[in-house]
């Protein structure tokens, strides 16, 4: 003998993107804070020491912001023209910045005036940075040269003129205090060692290089131009992978705190996050305008994006939901759970089995006792009607199957009818609900036809329903037209393909298909 079978709620496969751990992680940021700067933001750099202030280089100023401050807590504005690439030293005490006039200035974070000034570049210096030994600075300028400076004496140690175009990006190795890398618009990335007179490695990127990044291990090098390319430095600069996910030039790169994810910002207004194991995009952010600079605070607490229109977009991570709160809720003691469960029956005991209690939803209980009208009421409760409309529709279908839908729909007052009609109007155009709701709409119109005109509210709902259905019909017609056009197109296409097939076997076809996909 069977027990009552609850109403089957048909599951619909979820469309759209799949929720992965990554999406959950990267979605865990608050709504962004926008800070307006004076010009395009070419560099954002986080202080490596708490409280993790960050330096923003825009126009002729370098602003230092606190983590949650909206206003700069400090400003360095001793630049005649645009400042570039303000970068912290490892200890967070010094800051270096290049400038349009070709001089490099070194600031103390606590002071205001520059501690040192390095002159030597004849043109703008777009990239400066500290080597990891803390006492030297490398720089790259628009005069095609890259130089190395001594901080204490403020003199140039060595200058390399190997690039044949502007040097616009660079970074220093964290492991070796002598090694730094520069990328240039001459399509190359060069690795320099301060101990030698020339570059030790040249990597052909293929496009003007906008950003370079060295992995903490020093083994992998990422360069960004039109595409993002990952190189194996230890294998002599072999290309590992080329990431072609942006459709405009990639301007900035950064790693997250764990080194597991690579972020790239591009002029196409997107920040994409790659896994560094599979090099697949795991998440992507969308911004209002083209992105020039990007920085991620330690522990991924903050993502800051600088854009061409001078807007600084700051996203803070949502605080972790404290688990203590839920634990505070007083729960029954453990012994209430185990009460009687650990009793071992003795040999002479007679075991009376108790049937397991099955928990039924309210509508199932009502359907079990054949109270169709009340069951329909139960599924028209707001939380079911709004959040799980499939339950409402499934119960309607079940009532229809039992032949009691008409009587369940009948005998309702103005408010209930309008509620029903609102539901039907809203959901009837969803394909998975359409067959059932059309029946329901039919029945409602049949039942309440005699009372049309008595209530303005209901009449309005009826008109809305008519409108919705009319619109849907129009859409369908349009879609059919499109389908017809596509059929015509496909018909011509298949003819061509047939001839094509005869000429080159299927291999050729798959190749062209691949190309199509990649484009």
């Amino acid at each position: 003998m069977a027990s009552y079978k609850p109403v089957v709620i048909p599951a619909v496969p979820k469309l759209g993107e799949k929720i992965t751990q990554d999406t959950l992680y990267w979605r865990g940021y608050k709504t962004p804070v926008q800070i307006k700067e004076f010009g395009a933001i070419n560099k954002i750099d986080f202080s490596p020491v708490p409280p993790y202030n960050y330096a923003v280089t825009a126009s002729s100023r370098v602003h230092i912001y606190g983590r949650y401050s909206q206003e700069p807590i400090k400003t360095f504005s001793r630049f005649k023209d645009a400042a570039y690439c303000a970068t912290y030293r490892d200890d967070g005490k010094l800051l270096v910045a290049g400038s349009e006039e070709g001089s490099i200035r070194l600031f103390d974070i606590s002071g205001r005036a520059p501690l040192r000034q390095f002159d030597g570049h004849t043109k703008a210096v777009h990239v400066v940075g500290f080597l990891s030994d803390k006492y030297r600075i490398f720089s790259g300028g628009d005069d095609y040269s890259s130089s190395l400076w001594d901080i204490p004496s403020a003199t140039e140690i060595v200058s390399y003129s190997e690039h044949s175009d502007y040097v616009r990006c660079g970074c220093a190795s964290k492991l070796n205090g002598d090694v730094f890398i520069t990328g240039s618009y001459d399509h190359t990335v060069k690795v320099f060692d301060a101990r030698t007179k020339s570059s030790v490695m040249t990597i052909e990127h293929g496009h003007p290089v906008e950003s370079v990044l060295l992995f903490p291990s020093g083994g992998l090098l990422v360069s960004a131009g039109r595409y993002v390319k990952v190189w194996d430095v230890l294998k002599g600069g072999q290309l590992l992978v080329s990431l072609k996910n942006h459709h405009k030039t990639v301007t900035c790169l950064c790693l997250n705190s764990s080194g597991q994810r690579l972020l790239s910002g591009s002029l196409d207004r997107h920040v994409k996050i790659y896994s560094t194991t599979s090099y697949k995009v795991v998440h992507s952010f969308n911004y209002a305008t083209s992105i020039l600079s990007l920085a991620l605070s330690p522990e991924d607490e903050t993502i800051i994006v600088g854009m061409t229109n001078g807007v600084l977009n700051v996203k803070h991570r949502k605080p972790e939901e404290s688990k203590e709160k839920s634990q505070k809720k007083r729960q029954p003691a453990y012994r209430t759970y185990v009460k009687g469960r650990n009793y071992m029956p003795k040999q002479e005991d007679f075991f009376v089995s108790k049937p397991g209690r099955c928990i039924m939803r309210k509508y199932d209980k009502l359907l079990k006792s054949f109270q169709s009208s009340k069951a329909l009421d139960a599924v028209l409760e707001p939380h079911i009607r709004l959040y799980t409309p499939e339950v409402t529709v499934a119960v309607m279908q079940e009532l229809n199957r039992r032949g009691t839908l008409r009587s369940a729909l009948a005998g309702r007052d103005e408010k209930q009818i309008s509620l029903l009609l609102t539901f039907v109007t809203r959901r009837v155009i969803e394909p998975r609900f359409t067959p059932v709701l059309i029946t329901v709409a039919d029945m409602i119109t049949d039942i309440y036809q005699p009372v049309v005109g008595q209530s303005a509210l209901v009449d309005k709902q009826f008109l809305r329903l008519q409108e919705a259905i009319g619109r849907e019909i129009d859409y369908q017609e349009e879609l059919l037209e499109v389908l017809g056009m596509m059929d015509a197109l496909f018909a011509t296409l298949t003819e061509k393909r047939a001839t094509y097939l005869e000429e080159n076997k299927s291999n050729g076809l798959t190749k062209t298909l691949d190309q199509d996909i990649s484009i």
Partner: protein
Amino acid sequence: MPCVQRAELRGGRAAVRFRSRKMVAPAALRVVRCGGRAMHGARAVFSVGARFLLCASGDFVKMYSVATEELVQLLRGHSDLVTGVQLAPHNRLQLYSSSLDGTIKLWDFTDGILIKTFTVGYQLLALYALPSSEDSVFVIIPKSGERDTFQLVSVKLTKAAGQDMEAKELSVVLEGVDASPKCTAFGREGEYVASVKDVNLQVYFFKQKQLNRFSLRATNKKGGNNVFTCVACHPQEDCIATGHADGKIRLWRNFNHKKEYTFSTLHWHHDKVLDLAFSLEGTSLLSGGVESVLVQWHCGSDCKRDFLPRLGSAIEYVSISSDGTFYCTSHTDNRITIINSNLRFSKTIQGLIKARDVKTGLVVDPRTKALVLNGEPGHLQFYCLQSDKQLYSLDIVQQEYIHQAGLNQSDLVRVAFSAQGKWLATVEEREETDLELQLKLWFFDEETQSFKLNTRISMPHEDHITAMCFRDTDEMEDDSLMLVTTGRDCVFKVWVILEDTDPEAQQSLSWSCDFVGSYHSYQATNCCFSEDGSLLAVSFEETVTVWDSSTWDLKCTFCHPPGKIRSICFGRLTCSKYLIGATDHGFLCCWNLLSCALEWSAHLNVVVLQPDPLSEHIAAVSWLFKESSLFVFKPNEARPICIQRKFCKERIQFAAFVPRDVPETIGSEKYLWLRRSQLFFLTDTQELMTVSTKSAQERLTLSSKQLAVEESLPVTPFSLLLGKHRHQQSQGDVDLGKIVHHHHEQDSPAVKELLHTPAHVLPSASFLCPIFINSLLVSKENKSTEETPDEVEMESEEAEDDSDEENSVTEMKQEDKMPLESLGETTHRLSKSEEKELRKIRKVDYSWISVF
């Protein structure tokens, strides 16, 4: 021969015809009915102590054990439908049964012995036996000369000795009663009898010889239907309960007065009340109806009632055991439910459910070899042919079934199993204003040993699904598995398993559509895979298309205008290059797939085309001049192997070959196709039939022998088990004349040797004992190990012949056999090669010893 025991002869004229046919040609095929008849011929009766349940089933009375649901006894003897079963009032170990053949039989039901037969001479429609009436029973017979009028008569049963008696002393009690046994009931201690017909209730008091008639208006003001459907009398008070067609129950009191009678009404049922029964003390009233809910009304308090809902199908009869501990309901779908007195469901005795309409056809479950077809509404029944029992019922639709007339509910229409029975595909549909279709794929779960829903696809096709088949490759990998469905929406779809690589997904396997094929927008009607799975044949109205199953290219088309294709199938084994198709213009065509040409065609109106999965044979059933004929042929020759014209008067709907467990030995070459599998049919009256070469005589003697053996045994569950076991054994045996006991002893060489070897050459008894016991062990697992000792014995016998005079040598030999024996016992899982080697070693030993 699985269904020998419970198969029945066809009733009436048809049976006679077959018997006469048999006399003419003894080896001819016979059509045998399987699955038993409906068990709701009459109210079931509990034996005293509620140990057994007796119920009428077709021409038989069946006795089931209440504790184990086993069939204990089959009382056969009536030649027509049994209509009444009643315990004899004065000897509770005896049983009266009445039948349409005009006899009342008295049985000793515990031993299954027919004691007496009383011939009444009229058709008996119901039987009532009362303790108050000494030596007479009441029966309902048709009134002679008038159609459709029946009368209740009492029959005096003579106590004279002798088996066959005439019972012609009839006295009419009531005229114009209803034929149904439910419409007449006897009151407290047999003082009165109440009978209902249409809207009239008549009560006859035996002592006063007074007849009171009460009548109701046919319909009342509220639109109720007052027609009586059943009646029951209170066992201790003067109270009659009547059931009505509109679901009301009326309790009549004070009916010994013509005018001052009163009645009260109980109303819960929304449809016909089909049966009523008072409990033992009359404190409660049980009622059942179409709703398939057993309702218990408590008579003391008015409205208090208990329910036992969802009993499966309409309740035909309700009966109560004599001690009141059990209730029993007989249902329309061939089932008896035993219920505890506290309305707790206890047991169910389930035969083959005869669904109103079998849409799924006959399908064989490859795993259990059970026959699978529509069962309860929305369920699939797995029916074991060997034991005539439902193995289990699989809920496919998974919706609450509302027992109400006129409702359009989902029904199961197509079923297909994959080759190993690992996957099951089902299609259910519900048609109201528009069609609701669901394709479900079930996975056999080894842990729970049942099918588990894997994928549910709603609306797989736009229109009805006409056919469905799995690709039947025997490979174990799942990726070769695919399912093809054909629909009236002019396409066929190919479904394959998709593996989800995401580890967080709930299930890794799911099905999805792989290919949609169509042919000139014709409706797809049939589909069939070739034996190796490389080709798919799909018929589109008049055309058969053949597709390559790896690339889905259309390979070739066949047609035989102007007929539409009714069914197609590929040849198997040696005939796998042929494709057979039947058209509805009466042609059977065989196309050669290698030459793409018509090989042969025959003019035959084939309704069912069924290939045997184990051989090349194909069975075709034709329907001509209101007779079904069976043709069995191999596709490579146009001449049928076996023709059985006019073997069934009913139209055959479906057929299925069920593989036999043990190949049958068949003498005649003509019937060799029956050797490995058995052919079952389902007629359009939902009767399950099979063809058999054995004559009825053989089968009857067999079963009577079995009964004879059982007569001397006390009926215990163990003895039943044993008896059944023996019975099954003897079924497999060729020589049916042998008594079971002997057959056992003789077939073992070990025992033979034991009996025939001179005593002085026999080894010690302690040595012989394990051999003897081993020879008696009958179990499949031990078969191989069993054979070993047997062979050993045989060989030793030979050796004895060689060296008959050398006693010492024999002794030695016996001794060296000992370790092997013990080996055979302890290491049951010796591989065959190892055994062979052992045997070789033994042979070497012999030579060495004889030289010595």
